[in-house]
């Protein structure tokens, strides 16, 4: 038997006896941080990088002397220099400035729709797993349909129907994203449902909604947090791909994917147009992936033995 299951059952059964919250396995954030700092230094570095990116996005107007959309034709396609650290684009706009403003769009699209799909997916997954029967079958078939779709094509079809623009990118990503989350949470719920403390709660007549919220959800949370952290980078990549194809964020808004797409034309004589935003995407995606890996090792007991 899996040792982590024992741990869950024991610690949670204790909670059950005292009729307190069963989430005894859920750690304090400070202790998670400590364990990350001990075994996963790269996750801490990643977290710092993410914070820096977020600060850069918030304080963009303070950090740069340029406007993100002011065209200066005498300074077109200037190579990186002290005045323009990452050079300028075909309209003479400072690339660093545009990247700072673009990070607002890219980060918001990376985080907000992911949060929404995680919330929706978790809820649906728990209901399907706990309820079982027809409800489960129908929900999982729908999830199957969503997951049988090539993500980019589905996103493209939805964007085509709704038209480009930030709000529609949001909606598209939630429509595409919830299914995978629901699947994992359902599997987790099925496991938890068999555990003795959930059975005990059911036997003493706790209502279904309460069992889900008080007993299943807290024990799914570590997995959900890890999923959330690991889904953010893929959302950022999806957004940048959609924008790269011209089907995502529309100008004059700037997003990293859009900047790469605009810079592609000048790939050979002004490669910084493309590669500066590419590097930003790479840095933030790597940071979230490393953080998610670290969190998984610390939070998710299934992988802890390694």
């Amino acid at each position, binding site marked *: 038997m899996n040792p982590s299951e024992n741990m869950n059952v024991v610690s949670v059964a204790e909670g059950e006896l005292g009729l307190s919250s069963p989430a005894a396995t859920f750690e304090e954030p400070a202790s998670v941080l400590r364990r990350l700092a001990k075994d996963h230094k790269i996750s801490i570095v990643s977290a710092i990088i993410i914070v820096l990116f977020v600060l850069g996005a918030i304080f963009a107007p303070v950090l740069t002397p340029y406007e993100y959309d002011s065209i200066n034709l005498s300074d077109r396609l200037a190579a990186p220099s002290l005045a323009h650290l990452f050079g300028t684009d075909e309209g003479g706009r400072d690339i660093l400035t545009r990247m700072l403003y673009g990070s607002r769009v890219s980060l918001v699209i990376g985080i907000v729709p992911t949060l929404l799909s995680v919330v929706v997916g978790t809820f649906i997954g728990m209901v399907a797993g706990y309820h079982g029967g027809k409800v489960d079958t129908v929900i999982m*078939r*729908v999830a*199957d*349909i969503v997951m*049988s*779709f*090539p*993500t*980019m*094509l*589905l996103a*493209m*079809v*939805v964007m*085509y*129907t709704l038209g480009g623009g930030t709000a529609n990118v949001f909606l598209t990503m939630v429509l595409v994203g919830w299914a995978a989350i629901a699947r994992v949470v359902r599997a987790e719920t099925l496991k938890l449902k068999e555990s003795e403390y959930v059975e005990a709660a059911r036997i003493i007549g706790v209502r279904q909604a309460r069992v889900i919220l008080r007993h299943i959800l807290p024990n799914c949370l570590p997995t959900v947090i890890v999923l959330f952290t690991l889904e953010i*980078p893929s959302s950022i*990549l999806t957004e*940048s*791909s959609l924008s*790269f*194809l011209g*089907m995502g964020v529309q100008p004059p808004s700037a997003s990293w*994917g859009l900047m*790469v797409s605009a810079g*592609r034309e000048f*790939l*050979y004589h002004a*490669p910084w147009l*493309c*590669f500066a935003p*590419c590097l930003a*995407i*790479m840095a933030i*995606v*790597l940071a979230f*992936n*490393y953080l998610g*890996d670290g969190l998984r090792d610390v939070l998710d007991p299934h*992988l802890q*033995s*390694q």
Partner: protein
Amino acid sequence: MRGSVAQGVLRRLLYALIAIVGVAALVFVLLRMVPGNPVATLLGEHADNETVERISSSLGLDQPLPVQFANYLLGALRGDFGESYTLGKPVSELIGPAFVNTLWLALAAALVAWVVGIACGLFAAIRKGTIVDRLFMGFSLLGVSLPVFMVSMLLQYVFARYLHWLPVAGISDWTGYILPAIALGWGSAGSIARLVRSSIIEVLQQDYIDTARAKGRTNSQVLVLHALRNAMLPVITLMAMQFSGLLSGAVITETVFSINGIGRLSVQAIAGRDIPLLQGTTLLCTFVIVMGNLAADLLYNVCDPRVRKGA
């Protein structure tokens, strides 16, 4: 026992069918939610109402949506996906050759992904905790983290533009597939490597590995005959499922490398508001993916008798 296996297979086939029809319905409805009559859009602003109505009715667009959908499905069963609005040819004639190109690209990318992924994962697992492990896993995570368009353009820039070793874009012979296959396959290689590593490490902790060692098997025998064989189960599933990733990721790769595959055709269909063509490409990709998932399921069953019991 036999009966339950057959039942399981039948149930999975049914689920696959539901998924395909479901996706077809979803795309059908979504594409018809686009505001405005597609015929009017196609004919331009000078067309009068009568012409628009006549053409709409000849295309069956004036019928109720469920009837249109049923007709579409019946046609699709016979291989008739309608006629492309923009290219003036039957959709089936367009997606056939395009699919062949995408398939070659996906296979080449899968080859890169499997060879690189399994090798990286295996070495990282054996040298767990060392610098080799970190390097291989960093390389894998980089593959997962880099946007496909970035890798594509970087490869074009270095190998085609600077070194002139390989063609920039287009497919004239097999060398044309090398760069796109790397660009598309690296990400999949990364996730395969990570899964191979973790499942080998997990398998190596099992009791039967100790038994094998006690029987006097050498380290490499244990690794290949026992560990890798059992660790491959989840990997096989991932590899089959990744075909969907390769096919949908191919949109970007095909666009950057100018490969006339399904992805590029879909982009063209969207740009031209060509609904029948877009329907055809999405349906075809879905079919392939559902079949890939089905194959993964069945393979898993064949490889692991434990799963069969549960099914």
